Each structure stands twice: as structure tokens, then as C-alpha cells.
């Protein structure tokens, strides 16, 4: 019964979205406040209906109602509650429902929170958001309905895959989807502004909070996914330039570019066309990601279920929605006012440079992901594009971006003082160079690329510090005044500093981990030992463990350094009964910011006692790789809480005192 209510609610949501489009478009056409309010009501109604369907599916998973096809295929009574709940979005159908939930949720939020928008723009935004809702809900209802029943329900569900039963993996899709779909509001605002023919500072200000929220959520989602890959895959790596990773990375890069260009449009009214273009592109990349991940056109280590029909439908959705968006852009953008002029050395120039480099970086990821497909279609000869390509193209572009990054915030709008900025950054540059030289002295072996990377990371962190020092006039006014200024800094400024600082932290971690990781692998008998990164890892014992649905060998490894005990780790190698799949549960020893990453491999029978393959990685400063993006996302959220961006604040201020 509950599943039927859910299925009905899902169809109702589709109907309400159609109504939302009609009413809101009519509201704009007839300039009717009543129709507009009705359209907003429909938007909120559609969200509530999808939420009902989502709750119904979740209920079916929680109570293991195997008469629902999706539950029977993707759940099992022995799954812990948390993973039954997470099972709701674990399958293709469920994840599309999550996508629709986020889409209508953002639509309802735009309808409810957009009261400060001009009426026409708001009605068109709600209408466009409704149109996206119609398209994706229709796809979900007709092509991948998660709530269809089975005629003969099985007694037990088909899936109990414990690999998925991991907290980071369970919670990362909601973040990722909220991020992907958050960009839909930006897309709708761009379409609405193009129809209205007006892209101005106020429009850019409305775009910013949505872009910030989506970007922050995407940052968290990608980081959680990366962290899961790091500790669950057992490769010791955290980013593989895999097509599925790239699919999530492209919207992130575009959203980052949009945040910066929207600032230029907001503060100076300049680059309106480019900002609108980015707003359209960011969500288009989200949809491209959804298509790539589900259609199976790309081979990926995350092999997703291949379903050509669904892939074609998603490709059609992508083509039609972004096609219409960009066609509208091509038609209306030439009429947009170009905005104010600026000098070569100015904040605007720095932000444009940021955008150029981020766009080129996105082009790298896009080409690297799709080029093998294009090449094979054209010539019939397949090629591979792997991590070395990205290191050679994405790397230098990012290096250049990082090099100019700290300069931007120190330049004034319109016409900046290059000499003053250089003077203020002198200590930061010295600090970065000193840090790189320190790296040269301490880290061995010396690696030129690694040292440049360390210098760049330190440059970002020192640059963020220099920028804050400049803002509070430290050392130039009495300390008490500086402290007062520090307290008075707007949250938007803190957000920027945090985001840039987070990038610096990430770069340091990534460079250190990549450049100076140590690796050792030996076939060890019990009592044997290997050395890695100055640590001595001894295999004390291996005992069989009888898991609920797997058998495992669990090793006890004791780690010492110069004879001093450091830690003990108990990595496992699990074999799951029916399929004979083997997985490893790694052991991690945290040493300050660094990780000792320990993996138990296969057992080998030899002439003497049996041996086990033990792999050990010394991952220096690996914690920073994950801490950096968290700081960046935090920066986004702090900036989002800036009073200036809080929706409705402007309206209150306009009231007579």
C-alpha cells in the first residue's frame, strides 16, 4: 500500500511540475501575481510529492518489502539498518529519485526564498526549474520507476554486498547529488535572465548563494568519495582520473569558475555573458556526468550497470535541455550590456585569468574523458587516456592558476596597484621559497616537481595570510585596531580566505603524498618483517576470522621505529562466500598528518611455512589531502552565511526606518 502511495505521489509530482511550468510561464506573460503564487505553490507541492515517494521507497527498504522490484534487487534482510536506508539511493532507479528530490527541493527553495527577485525573473526561474523537473520526473516515472511491484515477490533480497556497507560510501551520494542538482537553480536563473534580457549586478548576487551552496556540497561529496576509495580500495591512492571521478570534477571546476566570474558581474557589472554561459555550462556538466555514469559508454573501474536505452534517454535529456539553454544564449547574449571597463592590472583581470585557467582545466578533463570515444568513433582505433595525460596538462594549468591566485585579492577593482601587491606578497613569496628549500633539505630523494609543488602549496597558504594581514592592517595600526578589524571582517572575506587556504592545504598534502610516498611489499611468514619509510612492520600472527557472510584472514602487524613500538594494525583479507570475491580491509596507523597504510594480500604455500603478501605504504601528510577540501567547503559555507547574501536581507533594509 505504501509503495502504491509512493508511486502515485511520484506521478502527482510530475503532474504538479507540468502545472508549475504552465502557471509560472503564464504568470510572466500575463504579469499576474496570483498565477505566480500558484506556480510557486505547485513547485512546493511537487517537492512534497517527490519527498513522499522517496519516503515510501525508503520505508520499503527499511522493512525489506521485497514485493518492490528495486528492493528485491538491491537489499537483503541481513543488511544493517543504516545500509538499508542508504539502499534507497544505492541503485540506478533510487539515485534518479534522489536526483528528482534534490531538483524539486531546490525548485521549492527557489520559489520560497526568491521573494527579493523581480517578479518576472522569479516566475521564469520557477518555470524553468519546473521544466527540468518535468523532464527528469518523466524519465523516472516512465523509464526507471523505483516503485514498481513484482508479481511474485521473493522471500529474500538479492543483494548483501558488504563492500557497500561503508559509512562514507553510504552518505556521499546525497552530498554529490545535492551539489550536482544545486547547479540547476543557477541554470534556471540564467535561462530566466536571458529571456528577460537582463543580466546585471543584482542577478549575479542572486546567483551567488546557489552556486556557493552547490559548490560546497559538491566539494564534500567528492572528498567523501575520494576518501572511501582511499581506504576501501586498498591501492593507497585517492584519485585515479577515472571517468566517473572526472564526471563529478567537471561541474565542480565550472562552479568554481562561476563563483569567481559572478563576483565580477556583481561588483562591476562586467562579463555578464560569460557568467551566464558558466551558469548554463555548470549544470550541463552535471547532466553530462549523470549520463556518463549511467549509460556505460565509458569504461571505468566503477563499472556501472550498462543500459543503452536509459543512456540514450539521458543523452536526449542532456541534449535538449542544454541545447535549448545554449541556443537561447546564442540568441540573447549579444544584446547583453558589456559592463564596465578595467585596466590590465586589476581585480577583474585576475578573476578573468582565473576563469580562463579553470575553463582550460575543465577542457582538459573533458577531452581526456571523451576523446577516446570520439577518436574511436572517427577512426575505429581505440586509444587510452590515463593519469599521465592529466598530470601533463591539468598539472601545469593548475600550477599557473595557483601562481596568480594570491595576487587577485590584493588588487583593487578597476585599476589595481601591481607594485603594492608585489610588495605585500614579498614575504609570502619568501616564505614559500623557504619552505620549498626546507623540503629540499629534509625530504629525500629530492624531486624537482615535488619541490615546485610544495612551494606552490606554501605560496597559497602564505598568500592567504598576507591577504588577511593586509585587510586588518597588521603592524601598520596598533594591535588593538587590527584585532577590531579582524572581528569586523565580513564573512564573505573569511570564506574566500578559508577556501584559498584549503586549496593550499590540499596542494601540500597531494604533493607530499605523491612525491614522497614509500612502498614496500614482501611475502612474509609469521614472524617476518619489512621496512617502509623508516618504520619496521612485523607480521606477528595471522588468524582466521569468521564473519557474518565472509571468511577472513586477519593479520596482526606491529609497527616499530628505532625499536620503539608505534602502533598495531589488523588488516584483513576477506573472501565472500558465494562469489568468492576477495576484498581487503586495510590497517591505518596515523602518524601526525601522515599515514602508514597496511594491506594484507594473498596467502602463499611454500616449501617452508606459509607466507602472506604484506604491502605497506608510507603516505606522508596524506591527512591534508582530505582536510584541505573540508576547509574549502567550510569557506563556502562561511561565505554563504554572509549577511549580504542572506536572501531577503536587502528587502528588509529597504523598508523605511
Amino acid at each position, binding site marked *: 500500500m505504501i509503495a502504491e502511495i509512493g508511486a502515485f505521489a511520484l506521478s502527482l509530482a510530475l503532474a504538479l511540475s507540468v502545472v508549475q511550468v504552465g502557471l509560472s510561464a503564464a504568470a510572466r506573460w500575463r504579469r499576474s501575481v496570483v498565477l505566480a503564487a500558484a506556480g510557486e505553490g505547485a513547485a512546493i507541492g511537487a517537492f512534497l510529492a517527490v519527498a513522499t515517494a522517496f519516503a515510501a521507497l525508503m520505508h520499503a527498504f527499511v522493512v525489506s518489502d521485497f514485493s518492490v522490484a528495486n528492493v528485491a534487487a538491491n537489499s537483503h534482510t541481513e543488511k544493517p539498518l543504516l545500509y538499508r536506508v542508504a539502499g534507497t539511493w544505492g541503485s540506478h532507479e533510487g539515485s534518479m529519485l534522489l536526483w528528482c528530490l534534490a531538483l524539486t527541493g531546490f525548485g521549492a527553495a527557489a520559489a520560497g526564498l526568491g521573494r527579493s527577485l523581480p517578479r518576472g525573473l522569479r516566475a521564469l526561474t520557477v518555470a524553468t526549474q519546473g521544466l527540468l523537473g518535468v523532464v527528469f520526473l518523466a524519465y523516472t516515472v516512465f523509464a526507471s520507476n523505483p516503485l514498481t511491484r513484482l508479481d511474485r515477490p521473493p522471500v529474500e533480497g538479492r543483494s548483501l554486498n558488504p563492500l557497500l556497507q561503508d559509512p562514507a560510501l553510504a552518505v556521499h551520494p546525497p552530498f554529490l547529488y545535492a551539489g550536482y542538482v544545486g547547479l540547476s537553480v543557477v541554470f534556471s536563473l540564467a535561462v530566466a535572465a536571458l529571456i528577460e534580457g537582463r543580466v546585471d549586478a543584482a542577478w549575479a548576487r542572486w546567483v551567488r548563494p546557489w552556486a556557493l551552496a552547490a559548490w560546497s556540497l559538491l566539494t564534500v561529496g567528492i572528498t567523501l568519495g575520494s576518501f572511501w576509495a582511499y581506504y576501501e580500495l586498498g*591501492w593507497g591512492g585517492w584519485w585515479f582520473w577515472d571517468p566517473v571521478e572526472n564526471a563529478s570534477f567537471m561541474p565542480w571546476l565550472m562552479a568554481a569558475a562561476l563563483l569567481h566570474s559572478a563576483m565580477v558581474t556583481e561588483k562591476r557589472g562586467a562579463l555578464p555573458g560569460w557568467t551566464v554561459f558558466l551558469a548554463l555550462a555548470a549544470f550541463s556538466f552535471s547532466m553530462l556526468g549523470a549520463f556518463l555514469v549511467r549509460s556505460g559508454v565509458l569504461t571505468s573501474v566503477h563499472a556501472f550497470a550498462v543500459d543503452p536505452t536509459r543512456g540514450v534517454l539521458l543523452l536526449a535529456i542532456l541534449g535538449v535541455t542544454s541545447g535549448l539553454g545554449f541556443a537561447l544564449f546564442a540568441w540573447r547574449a549579444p544584446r547583453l550590456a558589456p559592463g564596465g571597463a578595467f585596466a590590465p592590472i586589476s581585480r577583474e583581470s585576475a578573476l578573468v585569468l582565473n576563469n580562463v585557467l579553470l575553463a582550460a582545466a575543465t577542457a582538459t578533463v573533458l577531452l581526456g574523458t571523451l576523446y577516446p570515444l570520439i577518436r574511436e568513433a572517427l577512426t575505429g582505433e581505440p586509444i587510452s587516456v590515463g593519469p599521465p595525460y592529466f598530470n601533463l596538462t591539468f598539472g601545469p594549468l593548475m600550477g599557473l592558476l595557483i601562481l596568480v591566485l594570491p595576487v587577485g585579492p590584493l588588487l583593487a577593482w578597476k585599476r589595481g596597484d601591481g607594485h603594492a601587491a608585489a610588495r605585500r606578497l614579498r614575504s609570502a613569496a619568501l616564505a614559500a621559497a623557504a619552505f620549498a628549500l626546507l623540503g629540499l633539505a629534509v625530504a629525500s630523494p629530492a624531486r624537482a616537481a615535488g619541490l615546485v609543488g610544495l612551494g606552490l602549496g606554501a605560496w597559497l597558504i602564505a598568500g592567504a595570510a598576507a591577504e588577511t594581514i593586509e585587510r586588518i592592517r597588521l603592524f601598520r595600526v596598533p594591535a588593538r585596531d587590527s584585532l577590531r578589524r579582524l572581528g569586523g571582517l565580513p564573512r564573505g572575506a573569511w570564506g574566500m580566505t578559508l577556501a584559498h587556504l584549503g586549496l593550499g592545504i590540499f596542494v601540500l598534502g597531494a604533493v607530499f603524498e605523491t612525491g614522497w610516498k614509500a612502498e614496500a*611489499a614482501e*611475502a612474509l611468514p609469521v614472524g617476518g618483517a619489512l621496512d617502509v619509510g623508516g618504520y619496521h612492520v612485523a607480521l606477528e600472527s595471522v588468524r582466521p576470522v569468521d564473519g557474518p557472510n565472509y571468511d577472513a584472514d586477519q593479520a596482526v602487524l606491529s609497527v616499530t621505529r628505532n625499536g620503539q613500538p608505534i602502533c598495531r594494525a589488523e588488516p584483513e583479507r576477506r573472501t565472500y562466500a558465494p562469489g568468492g570475491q576477495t576484498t*581487503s580491509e586495510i590497517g591505518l596507523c596515523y602518524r601526525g598528518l601522515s599515514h602508514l597504510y597496511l594491506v594484507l594480500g594473498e596467502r602463499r604455500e611454500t616449501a617452508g611455512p606459509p607466507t602472506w603478501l604484506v604491502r605497506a605504504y608510507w603516505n606522508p601528510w596524506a591527512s591534508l589531502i582530505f582536510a584541505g577540501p573540508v576547509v574549502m567547503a567550510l569557506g563556502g559555507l562561511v561565505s554563504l552565511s554572509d549577511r549580504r547574501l542572506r536572501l531577503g536581507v536587502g528587502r528588509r533594509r529597504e523598508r523605511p526606518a
Partner: protein
Amino acid sequence: MRLQGLLAALAGVLCLAAASDPSERLSDPAQEARARAIFHDVRCLVCQNESIDDSEAELAHDLRQIVREQVHAGRSDAEIKRFLTARYGEFVLLTPRLSAGNIALWAGPFAVALAGLGLLLARLRSRASDAELTEAELQRLGRLSSEEAP
């Protein structure tokens, strides 16, 4: 289905860094390091998207053996890669070759960057010259102010 598929793929992947298996290693550490560097650039052809350094597949094992033998025999990196491409096609290399067919791939990102810089410079230049109002703008201003006057 998506996550189940993912898991199935991961199963093959989970016990990785196969190349560091001590039983396969070359005795000369310098040669072994060179072989490992080459492994990172060679695709495991039957796997989803992995280098032979990572994969435990049978084919990856064979490819590693071929590379190690050739390194041991003193062939250069380029010779070994030529040998592999002659045998398996360009698909086997994870770094696409700098060839005419791949020009868009290698030059694309930098072309985007250069085009962006060009547009920025063009804009800076044109805007610098039209800080003053143009003739058309002056006329429009005049029209607007005369419209508003009454």
C-alpha cells in the same frame, strides 16, 4: 544496480598494486624501478581502467613479465613501448602519443587557455580606447535625455 556493478568491478581491483609482488621482481633495483615506471603507462587491456602496475589480472601479469624481460635485456623505454604498441595497438599506452590524430587532445586545453587570454587582451585593448563615449552613444544619450525632458 549501479553500486552492485561497482562492487563486482572492485572485486578484481581490491587486491592491487600487484606489480610489487616480490616473486615477480627483477634483482637489480634500478632496472626494477624502470620497469615499474613503464608499468604505470601500460594499460591492462582486459581490465576496466587500470594500469598493469595495479592489476592482478592474468594478462597484466604476462605484460609485466614481458616488460621486465625487455628491461632486463637492456632495451630502452621507447623500444619497449614501440614493441607493445606494435603488438596491442595504441590502446595499450595510457599516455596518448603526440601524433596528428591526437593533436586536439594535447593542444585543446592550451588552445582554450590561449583563446581566453586573447579575448581578455582584446577586451582590455578595445575598452581602453572607448573609455570615451562613441558617436552613437552620444546620440543615444541625447535622444534619451530629450525623451525624459518633458
